[in-house]
């Protein structure tokens, strides 16, 4: 599997990132080098191995469903780049394009 410019464009779109043409070229090279290195995992037959997503065996942790104090609205809005009264404000959703 080799990463192309088209792949970089596609993944950048998924990740909500934009890059200059020069940066994209660099990324093609770097991603290919790193993914080539990762390819060595294919030497291993893992068809009978379960994926490990959590290193410590834990079962569900339950607690009583009690009301506890959380952040106030004012606190939650304190770091907002832009706000309007009690809301986060963002630029218009529908663009010009």
């Amino acid at each position, binding site marked *: *599997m080799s*990463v192309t410019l088209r*792949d*970089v464009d*596609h*993944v*950048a779109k*998924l*990740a*909500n*990132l*934009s*890059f200059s043409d020069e940066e994209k070229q660099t*990324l093609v090279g*770097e*991603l290919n*080098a*790193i*993914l080539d*290195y*990762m390819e*060595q*995992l*294919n030497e*291993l037959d*893992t068809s009978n*191995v*379960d*994926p*490990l*997503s*959590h*290193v*410590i065996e*834990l079962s569900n*942790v339950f*607690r009583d469903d009690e009301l506890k104090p959380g*952040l106030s609205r004012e*606190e*939650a809005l*304190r*770091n*907002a*780049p*832009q706000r309007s009264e009690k809301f*986060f404000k*963002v*630029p*218009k*959703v*529908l*663009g*010009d394009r």
Partner: protein
Amino acid sequence: MNPTYESIRRSIESGETSCETITAEMLGAIDDRPGLNAFLAVFRENAIARAREVDRKFRDGTAGRLAGMVVAVKDVLCLRGERVTCGSKILESFESLYDATAVSRLLNEDVIVIGKTNMDEFAMGSSSEHSAFGPVLNPVDSTRVPGGSSSGSGAAVAAGMAHTALGTDTGGSIRQPAAFCGVVGMKPTYGRVSRYGLVALSSSFDQIGPFAHSTADAARVLQVIAGKDDADSTTSQDPVPDYLASLTKDVRGLRIGIPEEFLKEGICDDVLAAFHRAVDRLKEAGAKISNVRLPHARYHIATYYILMTAEASSNLARFDGARYGYRSPRAKDLQEMYLLSRSEGFGQEVKRRIMLGTYVLSAGYYDAYYLKGQRVRRLIQSDFLEAFRAVDALLMPTTPTTAFRFGEKASDPLQMYLSDVFTVSANLAGTPAISVPAGNDSEGLPIGIQVMGKHFDEATVLKVGDFLEEEVT
């Protein structure tokens, strides 16, 4: 020789010194070397005010277990009312709304938080070169990197700017800077310390742990920060044992394993010599040394970087300019706000890892990379579980080399990743590990030796670390 907390506390209690004097000295040490760039924020007035309050508690006889200990906190952990930047432009002006559990537990025992330390952006890096606020210099040799990503925490302790520090370790980010700066650094078992209030990098790997001048002080900090937390359901319910009680210096009969595969990995001569000295000392003291096999050792780095970048790309999706953090002033609509805020706010390495992580999670590649990585992670963990049936602890170098020079690996991300070869394993397996100083190389640069233990057996890890730090240096 740096005094341990025990002796510092004694001199405060005897009236020989005070928390205020100690704190002022440390603020002075920070002012003396601003070029080190270890701190992103220094709490001058607050630290002195707090020190006076703790002095009062000493007089009243109500001083907590770590009263007067001056602590530096990596700027990825929340401290209420203060900024938490994660070394990133995207969070440059973000103010914490609550305390991380690890921080609040230390504050409850009357530590003095002196400041927030510099780091590789979002804890991605091994050199501090990826901080948006400039690199941290290694206090031992300013042409060298201090290690990363908890660069400022390691440097601050080494330079006498704090007694101890908190860092976070996702693939070696506590142990590697500890080794490069010549201090003790420990990553506890996954689930031993609450991650509440830690800005997540890779949720299945991240752990908070201490930097200190001695294993005993690392044990004291761990004692306080470890244990169940209702705010983090992945914390272990197991009781926290008395760690100081395990520091007996008695290693007789202890079974120590040496992972053969690791010693083939291009280790520089001085590091290898220090490692063999440590092995010899343990042997002379009555420990039983044996070789162990970790058959999947050569797959550690690849597995780690697949899973870590996948988790990171998902965790960092929340930075979109809407509710907090940097928002691009150029954005004309919502989609542009996401795209430009992220592209302008994140640094190069963070974007590279988000791209990698997004790629390995994307349709068509998920099975081949991400799921494959999770399967190999199980094989890797099984290797360790198997090894720990025969031994009580594993011994290995912390890093293959001592601190490298600025720029040496910055242009080749893969070379930088490969320098984590001995540290990522503890994060992959979830095991506790410590790095302790083991002398210097021919150029005077610190060498670190790493001890790894079974899940939740921090006591044995600390015991061996404590023994080695006395014997080797």
